[in-house]
């Protein structure tokens, strides 16, 4: 907890120590991990030289799992014990399942996460967070083996169009895998970073990102190392898999397959992918699928998939409008995601933006590479440039009002972090509680939006109707994650809030899951926590003392100064003992006493950034 260390931008407080960090592209079909080594970001390969890890997990039995290529091979042998495309279920509820085509209804059950659990033929049940966590762990292991040390932190990419629940589920998965998340980064922004830093390109960029299961379009302005997202849009349930599905549908019709034959449908999907990939280089391909033998031409397949591509272009149009950018102002279009290899996609995108799309960096790797660059900056390894990413919130955040209407509190494409407050009041005399329903989406009716959480605000002092002033504040952090606070302001009474996320895990659930996997090492855990707490205390003492010496006299009254100093002495004494809680408590007191000081120091440093620059310019 380096409380008051305000270092110059891009400068590490410990310049000699290179910390290990990685970027992870957790994809619907494939995942990758990348890291910066000797100043160059690159994806990491397994022992066989393969970089991509299929996002497929085979649950062999309760002890053994296989992830990646091995699991994928099992898919056609025992599909009932293999889970793929789990990203489609992240942050979703059972009610969303009609939109998700990869899983049949009888495979899915209600789980205590609010998300559907997947039941396998061998009886094992897994929720989406657990499956994702298993994939993340395998990736992290690869990095730790290659780099020869523990990862200090990771950046995980998410589709820009992921909503709050989907983001939170992703972060939970990392936590479950025992990984420290430095930042959730939007996939197109990551691609822009990789591309922009590689080419030094400036101006308005459109990032067209068509992955296996998601589509994102982001419009960014690149200027002197600042990556400013102007608008983002897309569809979190549309991707290259839909191409496969459309082609598979055609195959299934040709072969007269029974609609309930799940095995045949899965085979058709695999066949469809082969056909799609083959037609990238040739014009016709021979197809043998079950009873049906025939030929498919590129024209024929393009006709099948054209409506899906057109749907993505409609999103592009809307997002340009949101960005306030006209099509001819776009300087460059960068293609991301394996599905942009499809020639029709490239043709249509070029026609829409009137510039040839760029595919210089491998579209499969570009996102992971961008994430690795950002991870390297955030972990504190010195970076040459003042790279800064300014992102936006992809979907409007609102609240349910009378009549089932959704009122927007933070509109989409607002730069983050951001906070907005809205006032509500009671409508009955003596009302002491109020229900608040947080929703996300663009539609007017609550039932068409995504339900994020329901709050109950209790303990409002009884007043006449309309007299209470309930301030509801939405705070979105740099990860795009939302926190909602509610307070009754006239009485100054802070009412209790109970939060029940509609999807996702509570902190307790995560702690339980973590503990059950670590329970055998409980003693070790305690000793480790004490060690960590002591290190933490030492760091806080050092940082605050240094800050006090630097400008404590200048920024603090004598009383304030004395208060901080005495809490530091207290912490120093407590940290000699061996009570984790006592040290934690003492650190908290130092933080509480020095918060205002830290704030003033930061203000001074921010103001200096403005003044310093103006002096430079003269």
């Amino acid at each position, binding site marked *: 907890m380096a409380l008051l260390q305000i270092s110059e931008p891009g400068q590490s407080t410990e310049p000699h120590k290179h910390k290990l960090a990685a970027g992870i592209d957790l994809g619907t079909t494939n995942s990758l991990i990348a890291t910066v080594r000797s100043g160059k970001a690159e994806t990491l390969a397994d022992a066989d030289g393969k970089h991509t890890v299929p996002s497929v997990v085979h649950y062999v039995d309760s002890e053994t799992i296989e992830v990646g290529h091995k699991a994928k091979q099992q898919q056609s042998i025992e599909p009932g014990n293999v889970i793929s495309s789990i990203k489609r279920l992240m942050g979703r509820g059972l009610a969303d399942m009609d939109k998700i085509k990869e899983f049949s209804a009888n495979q899915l059950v209600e789980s205590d996460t609010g998300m559907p659990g997947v039941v396998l033929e061998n009886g094992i049940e897994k929720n989406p967070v657990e499956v994702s966590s298993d994939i993340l762990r395998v990736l992290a292991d690869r990095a730790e083996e290659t780099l020869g040390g523990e990862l200090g932190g990771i950046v995980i990419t998410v589709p820009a169009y992921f909503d709050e629940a989907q983001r939170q589920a992703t972060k939970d998965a990392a936590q479950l895998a025992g990984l420290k998340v430095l930042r959730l980064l939007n996939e197109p922004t990551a691609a822009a970073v990789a591309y922009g830093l590689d080419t030094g390109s400036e101006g308005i960029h459109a990032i067209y990102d068509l992955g296996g299961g998601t589509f994102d379009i982001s419009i960014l302005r690149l200027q002197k190392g600042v990556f400013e997202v102007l608008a983002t849009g897309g569809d979190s349930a549309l991707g290259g898999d839909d191409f496969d599905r459309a082609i598979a549908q055609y195959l299934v019709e040709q072969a007269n397959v029974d609609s309930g034959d799940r095995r045949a449908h899965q085979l058709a999907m695999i066949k469809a992918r082969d056909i799609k990939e083959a037609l990238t280089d040739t014009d016709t391909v021979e197809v043998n699928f079950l009873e049906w033998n025939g030929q498919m031409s590129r024209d024929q397949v393009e006709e099948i998939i054209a409506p899906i591509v057109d749907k993505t272009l409609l999103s592009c149009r809307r997002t340009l409008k949101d960005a306030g950018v006209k099509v001819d102002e776009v300087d460059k279009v960068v293609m991301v995601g394996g599905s942009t290899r499809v020639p029709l996609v490239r043709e249509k995108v070029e026609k829409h933006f009137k510039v040839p799309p760029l595919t210089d960096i491998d579209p499969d790797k570009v996102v992971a590479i961008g994430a690795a660059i950002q991870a390297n900056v955030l972990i504190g390894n010195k970076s040459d440039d003042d790279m*800064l990413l300014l992102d936006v919130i992809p979907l409007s955040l609102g609240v349910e009002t009378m009549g089932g209407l959704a009122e927007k509190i933070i509109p989409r494409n607002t730069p983050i972090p951001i*906070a907005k407050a809205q006032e509500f009041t009671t409508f009955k005399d003596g009302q002491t509680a109020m229900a608040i329903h947080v929703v996300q989406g663009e539609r007017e009716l609550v039932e068409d939006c995504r339900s994020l959480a329901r709050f109950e605000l209790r303990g409002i002092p009884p007043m006449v109707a309309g007299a209470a002033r309930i301030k509801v504040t939405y705070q979105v952090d740099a990860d795009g994650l939302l926190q909602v606070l509610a307070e009754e302001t006239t009485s100054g009474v802070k009412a209790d809030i109970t939060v029940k996320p509609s999807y996702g895990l509570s902190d307790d659930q995560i702690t339980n899951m973590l503990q059950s996997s670590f329970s055998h090492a409980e003693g070790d855990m305690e000793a480790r926590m004490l060690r960590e707490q002591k290190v933490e205390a030492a760091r806080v003492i050092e*940082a605050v003392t240094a800050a006090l010496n630097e400008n404590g006299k200048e*920024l603090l009254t004598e009383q304030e100064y004395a208060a901080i100093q005495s809490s530091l002495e207290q912490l120093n004494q407590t940290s000699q003992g061996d009570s984790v809680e006592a040290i934690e408590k003492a650190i908290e007191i130092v933080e509480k006493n020095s918060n205002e000081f830290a704030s003033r120091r930061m203000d001074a440093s921010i103001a200096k950034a403005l003044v310093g620059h103006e002096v430079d310019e003269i």
Partner: protein
Amino acid sequence: MANAQRNYFELFGLEPNFFVDQKDLSSKLKRLLQSAHPDRHAQGGSQQQMLAMQKTTRLNDAFAVLKHPVKRAQYLLQIEKDIDTTKDHTVNDPEFLMQQLELREELDNLTQQKDASALMDFADKIEMMAEEQETALGELFKQDDWDLEALKVSIYKLQFLHKTLHDIELAEDKILD
């Protein structure tokens, strides 16, 4: 040791004024964020990160207000004259009220006809009216003694035009779907 929070203009090193150079504002925001953004404090503790988030939030908020002519005018009246013009208020100007009604009716008709190009022309027209109204508002702010009633009315008129522009966008979204 002054604990009072600096106002949005001061945050950007500006005097409170209706006239703000937008290009300068935007480049200043980026400079300020270079130092305030949570990414710049990722190695600090949770408290430092929390503070960085709060400072950045305030900068983003300030930028949004100073960028937008209606919000900027409202904010200026708030900090200089302690007048809140964000709540609903009535304008006693029959001619303007009439025009309001007509414009709303035109928008409703175009929305029902789903005519995207006519809607775009309509947006151009409103945009021009908004620009004229903004110039008029600027003239009022130039006066040494602010005519508060005239300012309130002028802000309200500009607000109405911006609201109409916003509604046109919503209508366009619907047609695009």
